[in-house]
């Protein structure tokens, strides 16, 4: 198994390296992603006002101050430092989206490739279920689960996993179907090795590299989707003290005409995350696309 992981990582490394050399936008996107991840990990430790960031402390005398040296991004309507709030919220946003992407990617790869090499009935059934889950809207599913589970944050996670894994399952199914007639899949099956073993050993390593790139570029959309759901309905938010990007934006909408910085700072951070992850995937796609790769002036 180790050698397979090594090969997959090497594939991805090669893709990234080649794109890195050729595209400036890709370098920028990678840099932004790295900064965001570092900030998300270190955020709670480097926040200038950690107590305000966690929401334990409020200071109404300093409410709605514009950006200054004391408060780099200004303060919100309860006098809390917005930079500290964002640093605490980033941690949560990145953690949840990594969980969503990782779980749905693994589920998708295994379910999709099992459908491709399983029996005919299983194949039809799984394709049907994938279509069914794709038709469920994620917001409404999150709303349903939050009522059922008593409004916990996990309801958003589960709703997003249910609506994201069918995409990966569909891609994995299509790719595994093109592999299943090849010898290195058929011969182990004739030997009587179990299907899980064949998937792990022979199918997954061959389809995981492009899907991982796809998943990485979807990460931005997942961050956006989670914060949009909390922005709209506040699902999983126990109180307004909790740092969360969507919730911060929802509360700052009231002051948008008098204190636009309370709104703009978290929204721009979200936009940067989404755009840099999208660019990351798109640039690799462009670099490896046979037509888009070349610069071509139309002569007619």
């Amino acid at each position, binding site marked *: 198994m180790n050698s397979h992981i090594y090969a997959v990582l090497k594939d991805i490394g090669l893709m990234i390296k080649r794109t890195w050399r050729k595209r400036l*936008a890709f370098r920028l996107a990678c840099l932004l992603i790295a900064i965001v991840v570092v900030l998300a990990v270190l955020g709670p430790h480097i926040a200038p006002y950690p107590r305000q960031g966690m929401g334990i402390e409020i200071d109404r005398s300093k409410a709605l101050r514009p950006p200054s040296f004391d408060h780099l991004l200004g303060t919100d309507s309860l006098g809390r430092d917005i930079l500290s709030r964002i640093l605490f919220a980033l941690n949560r946003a990145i953690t949840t989206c990594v969980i969503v992407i990782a779980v749905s990617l693994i589920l998708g790869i295994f379910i999709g490739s099992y459908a491709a090499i399983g029996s005919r009935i299983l194949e039809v059934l799984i394709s*049907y*279920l994938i*279509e*069914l889950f*794709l*038709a*469920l*809207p*994620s*917001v*409404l*599913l999150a*709303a*349903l689960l*939050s*009522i*059922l*589970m008593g*409004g916990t944050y996990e309801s958003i996670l589960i709703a997003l996993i249910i609506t994201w894994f069918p995409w990966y399952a569909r891609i994995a199914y299509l790719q595994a179907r093109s592999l299943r007639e090849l010898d290195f899949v058929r011969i182990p099956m004739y030997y009587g090795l179990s299907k899980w073993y064949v998937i792990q050993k022979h199918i997954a390593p061959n389809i995981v590299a492009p899907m991982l790139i796809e998943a990485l570029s979807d990460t*931005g959309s997942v961050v*956006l*989707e989670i*914060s*949009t*759901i909390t*922005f*709209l*309905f506040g*699902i999983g938010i126990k109180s307004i003290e909790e740092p969360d990007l969507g919730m911060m*934006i929802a509360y700052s*909408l009231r002051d*948008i*005409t008098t204190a*636009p910085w309370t*709104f*703009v700072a978290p*929204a*721009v951070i*979200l*936009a940067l995350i*989404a*755009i840099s992850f*999208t*660019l990351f995937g*798109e640039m690799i796609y462009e670099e490896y*696309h046979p*037509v*888009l790769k*070349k*610069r*071509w*002036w*139309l*002569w*007619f």
Partner: protein
Amino acid sequence: MLTLNYIVKRFFISILLILGIIAITFLLTQFAPGDPAVIWAGKPRGPGATAAIARAREYLGLNLPIYQRLVLHTYRFFTGNWGLSVEFKQPVFNLVVRNFAASLEITVYSFIIAIPLSLWLGTKASLSRGGFADKCIYFASVVLAGMPRFLVAALIYIALYIVGYSYLGLRVAPIYTTFSGPTGMITIDSLLLGRLDIFVDAFLRLIPTAIALSTYPIGVLARVIRVSLSETFEEEYVRQAISLGLPRKIVVNNYAYPSIVPVVAQLVGLLFSYMILETMVVENVFSREGLGTIISRAISASDFPLVIGATVFTAIVLIVANTLADIVQALTNPRVQL
């Protein structure tokens, strides 16, 4: 090739998917964790709670055998009896249809804005691929699609606030508050009933919302159209048309466009599912009535029947939209065979 066979097949698949959605709601309502009747009654507290729970138990038929419950559930679904909303004390079906129509109106208008614009942008970009215009359009579309919709909506809101859109009557209460028509979409109803003043008012209020919402489909569609048009320009038949010396307009319109119609149709069908979330956001920022408002009230009141109804209705609309997209795809792309 579009055949009757294909349409019938797609039709049956969509019927199966709708039945699957009904089965999911059946499982969710009948096997909810804890007591299903308590959840269906909206987790009531206070003096009337036991009576409300008993009524919910009666309604769900929890003492009946399971196959009878399933039949009852399916029968109620198809007769439009989706229960009574806890929060609004109205039939769920009417509530959901009315509010969904209001949301759908914005979505449709934003697609009406987005499709021609992104077609133009995508064509422009793919015709000068690698050039300056291409790069500008490409990065603009990435930024448009990647910006959170509340940022776009709020920017437009602030811009309108500063410019003073009030001259057009936006600061005054709408004149259509008591107006209602057969479809629930005010711009269509007012035209049907011949009320031009209401149409103008509703349209002016709708336009900023639709523009804010349309940035997402513009961003996604322009990029996809750019890629698929670039691929089409490499195809043999387009190259032959170019080498015959046909003017650019004819090559693009008659040779390249027909081959991207299926891609665009498919993508519009898929975009619908994400657009529901975006529509709710835009409605929230511009404080319009719609699906988002009733869902947020339903969540705070734990109004389970209403959320179930909204989920089912939306899922069915998505299935129908995707089926239509597939049929359009089959109409325009002779290679699709199922």
